[in-house]
């Protein structure tokens, strides 16, 4: 089994009740609570808490934690200390979110100010607030809290039955006898191109880990339940049960392009995956990154340990009579048609089943069971 990132799966969940009366409180938002859960469950191993100043500065400038471990996305807890004068360094405070009944403690090592512009520019390569990641950074409070967290409690949530922690996926892979596992990240129902991509990668390894990102989405995106049910249909009819599993990842997309590709790989390494599929413009948005920047960045990390599998493009070729990619088809664009998510969406929007060479009938039927499969 691949070594967890940094050598150890972190578990910061306290399995006993403690009295939190009298402890200063700080309410956390959806993004922060997902970070807390991912730290506590080991998805962000080796992080045990929110970054302290030294680590943050290293991540921003060098894409590594202070101990040289690769880490590319700042995991920080922002707030405004002028509005919370009772919160000081050395304190333990209670982080809470009423929506999911989250309660967690943070032992505050440091409270510090930071340069938003420098952070945004280094991580996202732009200062344009049209970039959602930059906009998020500029929405943060002026100060950051660094320190270890301990998750005390959280209520059951939608899709918990699809949610496995790294410790659980590692046991699952071991029980299935898989040594090499390829992870596929998705935010959409599968079309034929996705299936081809996954099966091409699966041919070389023991198991496929389909890992949809669940959470905040844009208007017009497919709903989370639609994505999960459509994948279940694909897996039921077209995958060998002993070769593919699906579990969700609750995290917000940062649209950090190349840096986020590394971050996504690290999370999948913690789940126990040895390979990670990285496509064109992975985690990109607009035209802020080159189409293959998320491939090139892996050259900076010879010590990442998880192996990226790069795909450039895939399409259907009339002359080959099959799905092809840029490495295997000698024919030109005039013979090839891309799998257009937009076109598939338009057909589904009319309540129709897309052609079989675009999307499996069973997948489309599952999507069409929903009156409105898209986020409003």
């Amino acid at each position, binding site marked *: 089994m691949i*070594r*967890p990132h940094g*050598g*150890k*799966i972190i*578990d910061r969940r306290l399995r006993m009740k403690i009295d939190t009366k009298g402890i200063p409180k700080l309410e956390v938002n959806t993004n922060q609570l997902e970070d807390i859960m991912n730290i506590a469950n080991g998805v962000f191993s080796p992080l045990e808490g929110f970054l302290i100043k030294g680590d*943050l*500065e*290293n991540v*921003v*400038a*060098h894409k590594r934690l202070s101990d*040289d471990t690769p880490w590319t996305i700042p995991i920080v807890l922002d707030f405004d200390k002028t509005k919370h004068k009772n919160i000081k360094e050395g304190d333990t405070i209670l982080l809470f979110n009423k929506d999911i009944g989250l309660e967690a403690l943070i032992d505050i090592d440091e409270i510090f100010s*930071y*340069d938003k512009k*420098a*952070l945004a520019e*280094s991580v996202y390569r732009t200062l344009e607030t049209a970039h959602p990641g930059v906009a998020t950074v500029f929405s943060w409070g002026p100060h950051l809290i660094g320190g270890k967290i301990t998750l005390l409690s959280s209520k059951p949530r939608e899709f918990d*039955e699809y949610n*496995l922690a790294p*410790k*659980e996926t*590692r*046991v*699952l892979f071991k*029980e299935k006898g898989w040594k090499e596992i390829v992870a596929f990240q998705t935010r959409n129902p599968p079309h034929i191109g996705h299936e081809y991509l996954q099966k091409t990668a699966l041919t070389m390894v023991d198991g496929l880990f389909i890992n949809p990102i669940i959470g905040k989405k844009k208007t017009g995106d497919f709903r989370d339940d639609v994505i999960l049910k459509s994948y279940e249909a694909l897996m039921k009819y077209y995958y060998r049960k002993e070769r593919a*599993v699906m579990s969700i990842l609750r995290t917000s997309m940062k649209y950090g392009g190349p840096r986020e590709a590394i971050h996504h790989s690290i999370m999948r390494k913690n789940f126990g995956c040895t390979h990670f599929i990285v496509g064109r413009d992975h985690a990109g948005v607009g035209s802020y990154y080159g189409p293959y920047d998320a491939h090139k960045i892996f*050259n900076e*990390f*010879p*010590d*990442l*340990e998880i192996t990226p599998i790069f795909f450039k493009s895939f399409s259907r070729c009339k002359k080959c009579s099959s799905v092809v990619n840029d490495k295997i088809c000698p024919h030109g664009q005039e013979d090839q048609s891309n799998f257009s998510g937009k076109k598939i969406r338009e057909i589904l929007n009319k309540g129709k089943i897309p052609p079989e060479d675009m999307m499996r009938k069973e997948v489309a039927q599952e999507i069409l069971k929903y009156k409105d499969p898209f986020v409003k």
Partner: protein
Amino acid sequence: MKEKIKQKFTTISIPIPLAEKIKKQIKGTGFTSLSSYVTYVLREVISGKEEESEEAFSKEDEERIKDRLRALGYLD
């Protein structure tokens, strides 16, 4: 964070002829210095060789996890 944060460095001695060979080889490869190349190679060499810090979980943990995986249909 306005100025580029400096990492801490140490000095390692390597034979001068080797250093010269490396300098020639890295020309035009994207490595900006002998140090950046040596750092890359050393990171690659030690990658995967570090031990796991400790046993990830106990037997009881593992059994509890298997029970949940069975209940959710991930294991038969």
